[in-house]
């Protein structure tokens, strides 16, 4: 098969010429069995610190999330900071935040797969896992924020004695369908590439783990036909999930865009939300990769500065796109001249909560633009960790601006209001962060976080060829 230089190969600068190709994972191959062993060790090593974290986070889930939620259910929504006219607060903010993050996880994995970006290989699973657990955390919020969660099933379409169906005109029903669709498809998309790795794990474990992996691996033997079908399936899902992601996140934006609320009623919200989701999602991937790299055994072999570098470039691009959409939305709102919208925009920039708006701009625009152009910064994982964390803070603030701050300044000034999140709400929000981290932590010891077969495949395909005196990296197209 023909050798082909890849998309990011073209971006090489003269500076990079001097880099040792061995720094790249693909040109630093290790024997197959060695890789398998490293991954298995990664999965099975549990330190005291791990257990402390697991117990701490588990307690966090039980107390902060379910305890606080249970308290809220038993006493009522008065424990929140909601009030007329701000009926949606940090619950919906966090919902959009999680959904945004989760949408980007699978998206990053899928789009890089589709474009055959080689640097994706070690972290696709980490990103997909983020999607699943992000959705798990985010999907709780439509339930949490309900005034009467015990009748949530009224939203589900099923034939019943009341002769009633949910209102299919309501964006919330679309939301329900979209989220479940995405949860299902992204879980399958996570699961498919996992099968060969589960089989690998099955062959290297005993006892209950062995049984579990045996069931989950679906009798994978690694025959040519199996590989063929698996790759086909992954290919189909990778292509299919991208439009799903686009449509699903657009639907989330419709929660706001189809309403009559001044400041929400914007046609640009669909792409704006998608770009925002991708920006926060890719940033969250980097954040998670840094944590994995510094906490898991052998992870520094798989995750290297090159990955942070490449993702950093992506983030810069999306930060710029986000800025474009932001100013587009802002400008049109301002130019449109509807009094209520102008008022809202003014209040965002000058009102009592203007710091939220400025934090958003600083974190989403100023910081990435000032730092991510620099290769050194991009290749310094801990710096990237801080930057991406700040970007997610900024994206949280964006949603906070859009939801409570906009709701608080609608058309009748008599009814304006200020929203302050209350302890129970903050506790529940922190609880879902605990839930996400907890699930991730537990999963890191249950499934291989690195898709070993993909890394191995990549390492086989990459080689250094001698051209004259220089060694030139080259890739063989496998398919």
């Amino acid at each position: 098969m023909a050798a082909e230089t890849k998309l990011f190969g073209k971006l090489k600068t003269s500076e990079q010429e001097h880099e040792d190709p061995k720094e790249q994972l693909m040109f630093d191959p290790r024997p197959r069995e060695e890789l398998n062993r490293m991954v298995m060790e990664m999965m099975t090593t549990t330190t005291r610190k791990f257990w402390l974290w697991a117990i701490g986070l588990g307690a966090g889930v039980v107390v902060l999330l379910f305890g606080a939620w249970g308290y809220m259910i038993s006493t009522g929504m008065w424990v929140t900071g909601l009030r007329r006219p701000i009926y949606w607060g940090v619950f919906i903010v966090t919902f959009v935040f999680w959904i945004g993050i989760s949408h980007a996880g699978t998206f990053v994995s899928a789009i890089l797969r589709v474009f055959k970006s080689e640097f994706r290989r070690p972290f696709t699973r980490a990103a997909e896992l983020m999607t699943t657990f992000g959705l798990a955390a985010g999907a709780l919020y439509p339930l949490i924020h309900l005034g009467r969660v015990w009748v949530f099933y009224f939203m589900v379409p099923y034939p019943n004695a009341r002769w009633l169906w949910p209102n299919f005109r309501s964006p919330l029903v679309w939301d329900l369908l979209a989220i479940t669709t995405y949860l299902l498809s992204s879980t399958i998309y996570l699961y498919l590439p996992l099968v060969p790795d589960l089989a690998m794990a099955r062959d290297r474990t005993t006892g209950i783990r062995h049984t579990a992996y045996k069931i989950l691996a679906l009798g994978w033997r690694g025959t040519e036909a199996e590989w063929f079908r698996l790759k086909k399936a992954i290919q189909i899902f990778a292509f299919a999930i991208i439009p799903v992601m686009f449509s699903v996140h657009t639907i989330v934006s419709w929660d706001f865009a189809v309403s009559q609320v001044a400041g929400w009623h914007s046609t640009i919200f669909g792409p704006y939300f998608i770009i925002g989701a991708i920006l926060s999602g890719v940033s969250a991937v980097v954040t998670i990769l840094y944590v994995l790299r510094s906490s898991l055994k052998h992870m520094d072999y798989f995750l290297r500065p090159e990955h942070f570098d490449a993702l950093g470039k992506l983030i810069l691009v999306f930060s710029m796109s986000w800025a474009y959409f932001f100013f587009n939305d802002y400008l049109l709102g301002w130019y449109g001249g509807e009094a209520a919208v102008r008022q809202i925009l003014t209040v965002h920039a000058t009102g009592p909560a203007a710091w939220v708006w400025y934090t958003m701009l600083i974190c989403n625009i100023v910081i990435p633009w000032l730092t991510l152009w620099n290769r050194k910064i991009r290749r310094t994982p801990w710096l990237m960790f801080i930057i991406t964390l700040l970007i997610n803070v900024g994206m949280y603030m964006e949603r906070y601006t859009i939801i409570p701050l906009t709701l608080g300044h609608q058309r009748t000034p008599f009814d304006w209001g200020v929203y302050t999140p209350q302890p129970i709400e903050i506790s529940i929000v922190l609880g879902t962060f605990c839930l996400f981290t907890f699930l991730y932590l537990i999963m890191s010891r249950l499934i291989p976080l690195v898709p070993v077969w993909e890394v191995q495949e990549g390492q086989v395909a990459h080689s250094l060829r001698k051209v004259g005196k220089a060694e030139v990296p080259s890739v063989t197209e496998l398919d």
Partner: protein
Amino acid sequence: MAEVSKGIAEKWGLVVDQDRCTGCNACVVACSMENNVPFTGEDNVAFGRGTYWIYNKRMWEGTYPEVAPAFQPVMCQQCGSAPCEPVCPTFAAVHSEEEQINLQIYNRCIGTRYCANNCPYHARQFNFEDPNIPEPMNSYLNPDVTVRRRGVMEKCTFCVQRIVAGRQTASAEDRPLRDGEVTPACVAACPSDALVFGDLSDPNSRVSQMAQNERQYKLMDELGTRPKVTYLKGGGRNGG
């Protein structure tokens, strides 16, 4: 106006004459007593959770000494094309085809509060907690109106219980409803006769006549909500 209301079925309507309205808030209390709206206490009112199905949006006009309050009693406008209805996932906010008002079906409400966000009039109220009405004060609760428990939205119903009762009485006596036979609590109480309620589909009803007044306007007409409540601008300095 004619072209806007075209294609919208008309039934019950309310006219608020702001020139008559003194802003005394008797309507607020009458509504609350009729419809079992719970009092919430000082802290809740301070927090922005006072529950009022109708309340006076008192803005100030001018500066001292030419300052005057502009009273505007706002209740659910019973929009013909209501923003709250399409966003409710469970049909709890639903249009009554028979009465041409917006209903809030408490037992269907799951409390997403989307309708309240989407109501440009802020006419919808959320029950953040169960009503706290100690015995024997609960004795005055109107058995014709559901006492809402926490977690559901509520709003002005045009006193639909009185509409239904009036309709059933008329039908039992085999006659059409008379103009003025059904009055919501706010209309019945209004000391200065600023509120007029009736059937807009009857061109001879008092409310239809008043809705033709040259002072008429509708709240946020530009949003296309087609409200069933018509305001008549106040004359003079404190005009609407």
